[in-house]
């Protein structure tokens, strides 16, 4: 089918009431035609909600047993009974009822049922005003208890003289409560999403602030003798580093790096001071499993340089063993404590130093 099907044909397709041949023809067109696909999809979405108008029953324990028995292979898939004459008669009766006005019949049925016993407490409320409808309501006389507890306002209201299915004031209160809960639920979901975004933003700001605090503390700290420089890299301390940082921030280059290790965000600030001095990393290192630590590497061309260890779960500044150049890559990996020289595990983060 290359031409668009008639709208009515599309309706029947969405309803699933076409024969197999016609269904296949329409489906072939719908699958290749965005317009008809959209149209059929919208119709489908309307039809899909129709069962929501039906009153809920409690799930049958007998059916549950049969489902699991079938899955266990101890029960047949289902048994089919030949149509009995009872059903033919019932079908004729149903057709006649439809023709003469089902709503009226239902109203009478309900009134009869309700008049037999007192209505019990209601589990369900409908805020809708009494109106006549045959939708979602029993089509055979039902026990009063079941009808009364079923959200079928249309039937209950179809008979003008029928007693109210529920106290109007109570019904109104339940309706208001339901509506309020709906709004509260949606509002809470929206707030949770908004708060999550805000938490992530605050975490990033906190990491930035940590780096700044480190720098300020260094400025205030009295000058202390520097430890003997160790071969390779080491953790620098003292006011000199802060002074260098301030100088770097004013005239050097600063790189802000964000990443995630496991489920934990990791923020780093890499500072390349001017005048070819060694680069410094400021960060709060995420927790590492016992026996492991995070190690920094500088990848320059084909060479890999060990740039030192970041102590886990601590505010740290790491002076790197070299100044960084444009094109260098600073990478981090998780390594067993005490190892070095070459990375033995995949890099967790990698940042390329730009000009």
């Amino acid at each position, binding site marked *: 089918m290359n031409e668009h099907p008639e709208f009515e044909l599309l309706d029947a397709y969405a309803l699933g009431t076409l024969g197999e041949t016609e269904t296949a023809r329409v489906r072939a067109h719908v699958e290749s035609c965005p317009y008809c696909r959209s149209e059929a999809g919208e119709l489908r979405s*309307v039809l899909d909600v129709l069962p929501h108008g039906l009153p809920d029953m409690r799930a049958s324990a007998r059916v549950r047993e049969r489902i699991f028995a079938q899955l266990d292979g101890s029960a047949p898939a289902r048994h089919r009974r030949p*149509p009995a004459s009872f*059903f033919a008669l019932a079908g004729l009766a149903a057709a006649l009822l439809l023709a003469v006005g089902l709503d009226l019949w239902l109203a009478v049925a309900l009134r009869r049922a309700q008049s037999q016993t007192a209505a019990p407490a209601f589990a369900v409320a409908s805020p809708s005003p009494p109106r006549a409808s045959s939708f*979602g309501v029993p089509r055979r006389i039902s026990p009063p208890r079941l009808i009364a507890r079923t959200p079928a*306002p249309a039937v209950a209201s179809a008979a003008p003289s029928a007693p109210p299915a529920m106290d109007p004031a109570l019904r109104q209160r339940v309706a208001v409560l339901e509506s309020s809960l709906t709004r509260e639920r949606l509002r809470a979901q929206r707030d949770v999403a908004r708060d999550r975004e805000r938490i992530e933003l605050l975490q990033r700001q906190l990491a930035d602030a940590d780096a700044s605090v480190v720098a300020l503390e260094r400025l205030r700290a009295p000058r202390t003798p520097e430890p003997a420089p160790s071969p390779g890299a080491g953790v620098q301390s003292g006011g000199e580093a802060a002074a260098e940082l301030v100088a770097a921030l004013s005239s050097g280059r600063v790189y802000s790096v964000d990443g995630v290790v496991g489920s934990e965000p990791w923020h780093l600030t890499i500072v390349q001071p001017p005048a070819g001095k060694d680069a410094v990393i400021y960060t709060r290192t995420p927790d590492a499993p016992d026996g492991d630590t995070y190690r920094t590497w500088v990848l320059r061309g084909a060479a890999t340089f060990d740039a030192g260890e970041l102590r886990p779960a601590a505010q740290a500044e790491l002076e790197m063993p070299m100044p960084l150049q444009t094109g260098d890559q600073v990478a981090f990996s998780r390594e067993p404590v005490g190892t070095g020289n070459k990375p033995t595990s995949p890099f967790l983060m990698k940042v390329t130093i730009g000009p």
Partner: protein
Amino acid sequence: MVDREKPVERHQNEIGSSDLVLMRSMARGERGALSSFYERHGGVALTLAMRMLGDVDGAEEAVQDAFVAVWRRAADFRPDAAAPRTWLLAIVRNRCIDELRRRPGLSRALPLDEAQPPAIEGDPWPDIWKRHCGDALRAALRDLPSEQRNVIELGFFGGLSHAQIAERVDAPLGTVKKRMRTGLRRLRLALDASYADALP
């Protein structure tokens, strides 16, 4: 590690587990998820089947078939195509239409003799939401002209073609088609407005 000793209890304790979670659990073969899914939707599935078939045995068989099908095809479920409940009810409806075509003389009544009202246990939200949707839908349907509502019901719940509906309501085929189309569009507009009202 999956608790294979008491999967049913474990899932029943997961108040608030979404249908999608249950579908994923079913795809992994966890029967407790099927049990929870059945508890949650077995009632409306049975109501739909009885509404269409008017026959307790036939309705129960359709529901049994549908849940077994959901269990077996859970791994193929596409959440972008439909909600799990919608998918289940579509399967129930298709089973019922098959049955109706096999047994054209079947009555279409809805006996509630054996039905039990649902109890609200645990998280009341799913019940409240379902009832909200149900109220909105019933209100939208009530606002339709009865002849439009009737053809929609006969088409959806009766599984009747346009021609069969025309014969049933003794109206020209073109009239039935027009009523169906107009009714569905009015229903769509009404539902759109209703759900929009529910948003804050």
